[in-house]
Structure formats: C-alpha cells, structure tokens
C-alpha cells in the first residue's frame, strides 16, 4: 500500500503560507475599510457636531471661532437652550398632542384595514386595495387647497363648541384635531401597505387553525394577528411619528395664519429663526430641542424596528 505519509506534506506547507498571506492581506483591506468608514462617519456627523457646538457658544464666541470647535471658557453658555426651550415649549406640547394620537391611529387603522383586506378573503377586495395603494401616490401639494377649503367648511371649533368649556380643554385643540384627522388619513395608505406585506407572510394554516379552534374574525385579530404585529407596529410607529412630528406643510396650511396657540414645534422653530438678528446659537439649540422626541422614539423602538424591517 502506498498511502501518503502522515504529518505536514510539502503541499500543506504551501497552503499554510498562502493562508498567512491571505490573513495579512485581509488586515490591510480591513484597515482601508475602517478608514473609509471613519471618513464617512466624520463627513455625516460634522454638521451635527458643529450645530451642537454652536448651541453652547455665546454669539460673540460663535463669531470669533470655527463652528466645529468646542466653546472655551467664557464662550460657553446654556442661554440658547434656555431661550429655545422657553420659545418652543408650547410647540412641543402641541406637537405631542398631535403626533401621538395621529401616529397610534394611523398605525392601528392601517393594521386593521390590512387584516381585513389580506387575511380575510371576500369578494371585490382588490379594487379597495387598489384605492388604498393609490392613496400613497397622491402628492401633498395636490391636496393643500382642498384641505384648507375642507376645514374652512367643516368648522370643528364651532361644531365641538360644547367641549371647550370642559376642564383641561382649549379652543385651539380644534385646529390640532384637524391636523390629526389629516395626518391619519394621509398615513393610513402607507401603514396599510406595510402591514399588508407583513400579513401576507403569515402562515395561512395558522389562521385556519384559529378558525377551527372556534375563533371569530375579531378574536383572530386580537389574539393572533395583533400580538404578532409588534415588529411592524414599531416600524409604522417610528415612521409615522417622524413624519408627523417633522411636518411643516400641513401645519402651515391647516392652522390659522401664524399658527396661533395651536402651532406645533416645527412652526414654532420656524418663528424662532425669523427674527431680524440671526442668533445661530438659539436656532441650533432649538433644532436639537425639536428633534429630541424623534430620537427618543428611535431609541425606545429601535430593536423592534430592526426586527420589523428585517421581516
């Protein structure tokens, strides 16, 4: 028998060398990769960093130093933040009153609509699905005039006049209500589509098993579909919250001119920068204050969000 001898053969020696060379090469490409990634991070974060630094500088320090350098000694101040908070406080409250219900409603209604049009089979559902999908493609600009006309005709403030006398209620909530209705209506098509794609991936047999277990259409939604929708709820909640929180256009069109007491934070931020003297530090602080809630939402739902996007 002429079997090859045990132990390292010339062939396996060269293979080891090849492996070592590959490892060195990998190191080099890895260094290059990290360098590129680092440069990209710096590129994208630079404006943010400069903004943050500016927000902590006095106007004087801002005028005399490069924007991305940190404030030094007497150039440091918290005053811009104090001003921004004071000016934007009302807007933050309004935005929360607007964004939270509008987000929850558009996600919830989108989910229910998707369940009814995906998991349950009935005749003529496709035209309705087509209508929902068409809703996504209507541009904002096309509905601005009809919207302002609509809320001029449907005067929620006088229609709901009985409510304004109640404790904790304010008359300007009527304008916020208008905004909520608009954002919910505008958000449902996209949340519907996201949920529909998600529900289509559900096992049909699981829903059938629930039917045979005696569960009604509503019970299947509440006990099976809704609990399994958590990842997609995270996606739609983050998406819708960011959209609604950052919206300026609808607020400008639907609210009485100038926004008044109902102005959300985006309108207030706009007003903050509208002075004759440009105070960049206050504007930067204001921008961060206005962006804070969306950041918090991302942190809270981030893990679920990743799961939902991955599915």
């Amino acid at each position: 028998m002429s079997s090859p001898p045990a132990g390292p053969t010339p062939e396996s020696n060269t293979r080891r060398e090849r492996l070592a060379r590959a490892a060195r090469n990998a190191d080099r490409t890895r260094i290059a990769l990290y360098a590129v990634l680092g440069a990209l991070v710096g590129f994208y974060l630079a404006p943010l960093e400069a903004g943050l630094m500016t927000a902590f500088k006095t106007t004087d320090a801002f005028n005399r130093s490069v924007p991305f350098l940190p404030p030094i000694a007497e150039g440091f101040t918290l005053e811009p933040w104090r001003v921004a908070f004071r000016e934007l406080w009302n807007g933050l409250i309004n935005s929360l009153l607007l964004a939270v219900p509008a987000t929850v409603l558009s996600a919830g209604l989108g989910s229910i609509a998707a369940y009814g049009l995906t998991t349950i089979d009935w005749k003529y559902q496709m035209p309705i699905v087509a209508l929902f999908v068409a809703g996504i493609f209507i541009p904002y600009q096309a509905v601005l005039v009809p919207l302002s006309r609509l809320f001029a005709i449907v005067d929620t403030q006088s229609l709901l006049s009985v409510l304004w006398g109640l404790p904790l209620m304010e008359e300007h909530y009527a304008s916020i209500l208008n905004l909520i209705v608009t954002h919910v209506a505008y958000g449902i098509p996209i949340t519907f589509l996201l949920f529909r794609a998600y529900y289509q991936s559900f096992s049909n047999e699981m829903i059938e098993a629930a039917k045979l277990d005696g569960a009604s259409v509503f019970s299947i939604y509440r006990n099976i579909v809704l609990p399994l929708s958590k990842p997609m709820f995270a996606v739609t909640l983050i998406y819708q919250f960011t959209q609604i929180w950052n919206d300026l256009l609808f607020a400008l069109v639907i609210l009485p001119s100038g926004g008044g007491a109902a102005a959300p934070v985006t309108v207030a931020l706009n007003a903050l920068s509208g002075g004759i003297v440009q105070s960049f530090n206050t504007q930067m602080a204001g921008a961060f204050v206005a962006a804070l809630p969306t950041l918090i939402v991302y942190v809270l739902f981030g893990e679920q969000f990743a799961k939902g996007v991955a599915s």
Partner: protein
Amino acid sequence: MAELTLDGVTKWFDDGGDRIVAVDDADVEIEDGEFLVLVGPSGCGKSTTLRMVAGLETVSQGDIRLGDHSITDEPPTTRDIAMVFQSYALYPHMTVRENMSFGLEESTDMPDDEIRSRVAETAEMMGIADLLDRKPRELSGGQQQRVALGRAIVRDPEVFLMDEPLSNLDAKLRAQMRTELQRIQEDLDVTTMYVTHDQTEAMTMGDRIAILDDGRLQQVGTPLECYHEPANQFVAGFIGEPSMNFLDVELAGGSLVGDAFEYPLSEETLADLEGHDSLVVGIRPEDIELDGAADASHSYPTTVDVVEPMGNENNVYLTFDDDASAQTVVVTVSGMRKVDAGQQVAARIPEEAIHVFDRETGRALHNRTLDRAEVTEPNV
C-alpha cells in the same frame, strides 16, 4: 354519535370560464370512531376533500353530514372539528399551554380552572407536560408535532382531521409517531380522517383506506382488501412497496401472450376475462418464486439485472431472456438468499397470485385467489 358522511361531494374551481374539478362526486361514510385514511398521489384532491370537511373550502356540490345534520354550510368555527396541519400551525407567540387552551377558550364557555386541568391532563398523555411554558420555537419538530396533536385532542371534538401530520418528521420518529397516533386514536375512539400520500402510513394506520386519484375515489376498503383485491390498476400499483409488476398482454387461445412470454390460464380465470382482449397482468413482487417447483407452463427463464439488498429482503430486478423491450420485473426474496447480477434464474408466476386488468379502463377483471382464513381481521 359522530359518523361523518360525504355524499356526492364535488369541488370545482373556476379558472377563467374553465371548470377545474378537484374532487369529483366523492361518497364516503366514516363510522363513529373509525380511522379512515385518504391516500393518493399529490394533486389528487385529498387535501381539498379534507379542507371541505373542515369548512376551509366551500363545497361546490353534494352534502357533508356529521351524525344526521348537514354541516355543508356551517362555518369552520362551529363544526366541532379539530385539525392537525402538516406545518403544525402553532401560534408562535403563545406558550404550549396557551396554544392548547386557545381552542377551549374560544369554542366553549368552560371555566379557566377546568381548561387548565384538561390541558394538563392532555399534555401528560402526550408526554409534553414539561414543555407547557415554552414557546413553539423552543421545541424540536417532534415536540411541536406533539403539541399540534395535543391542541386537537384537548378540544375533544367530534372529528379529527389530519393533513399529512407526520411528513415533516424524520423517518425514525415518523414510524414511532405512527404507532403512537394509532394507539391514541384507539383510546379516544374519535372519528378520524387522515390524509397522506404515503401508502405505508395508509396501510399501517387506517381501519379503512380511501384511495383517490385525479379527484375520483378509486376504492374504499380495509388495507388488506385494497392490497389483495384492488378495484383497478391504479390502486394495485399505488398500494404496496415495491409496486406490483404490470405486463401488457393479449388474450389469445386461452393464454395471455406478452412480448416475451405466453401464460396459459385455467378455465376459472378465463371465465373472468370474457369479452376482453387487451389486458394487463399484475403480480406482486413477493408472489414471484425464483427457481420454483418445475411448473413448465408458468416458469420463465430470466436474468438478474440489479439486486437491491434491504437486509431483511432483497429486491431483485429481472429481465426476460428473449425480451427485446428489456422490461424488468421486480421480485422480493428473503434477505438470506444470495442472488447476483447476471445470474440466470427461472421465475415462476403462480396463477393463484395474478391480477388481470382491462388495459383500456384499468378495471380489475380478475384478482388473486385468497385463502379467506388468512385475511380475516387481525386479532387485537
């Protein structure tokens, strides 16, 4: 009482004006406590039939009765039927306990502590009591399978429907679950309709089996009836592993004449074939004898082509010596017997074991003769 009756059940799908018939006029009666296996190749309509009984598909024509009331138009929620799916279809976000309780919570107004004790009892029986607080994704395939069964059993339904419940298990576990499922069904004595494409499952598990092909019921009978007295060539070929051998023959002068052989028939057999000329003769692999007793008229010189050793037996593929078409015939012989490829052997085809089918219709004209005493119900 819960006998399940399918009365002329038909299902068709409309496909742009064309009517595609999935199940054609199926008549089956399943007695109370009976285990009926619905078997057939894929696409034969067996799952559709099961889903119609479950209420997941509408019935195009005919009637399904449970006991003496029709359930044809009842929704699946109220039929009091439990089903085990091939994919198990467990609720992934619920624990095993919640999975098993869900049906009782939804379909009955049983108090919580009674549901709890029934679930615990069933879990004990299924050997999954220690898994009750786990989620389905933490279970192995076999454990999920048990949970799916347990979920059906705990409901104590009138009828069990099972849609290829064992096909996702590995071979060893499948054989084990097959026995266990039979034992459970016997203990519970619940009417069961079981769908499979696996003829071994059909043979071993069913009280009776119903063989379906192309939407039509081919035969309903006990496993041994279907094995020994197939109604047609399809059933004969489908039941049994390895399959029955089929050879095309013509009837001429009191003999069956094939490409490579001539097979003289007795008067009795001939009487069954009256009026048919184009025939197919069938013989089960285990009925062919190699080097059998000298019976010149039913023995043929053959060559061994391939031998598949299975341990307990060998599958031997033979070719007729002077056969131009090189048609092979499979024979099973004892595993202890040594047969080699290329060897010349005499194959004897005993007349009492042959089946004869009409070549056009496939209908069985003559089935093997049986010593009746051998085929009585097994002693339990």
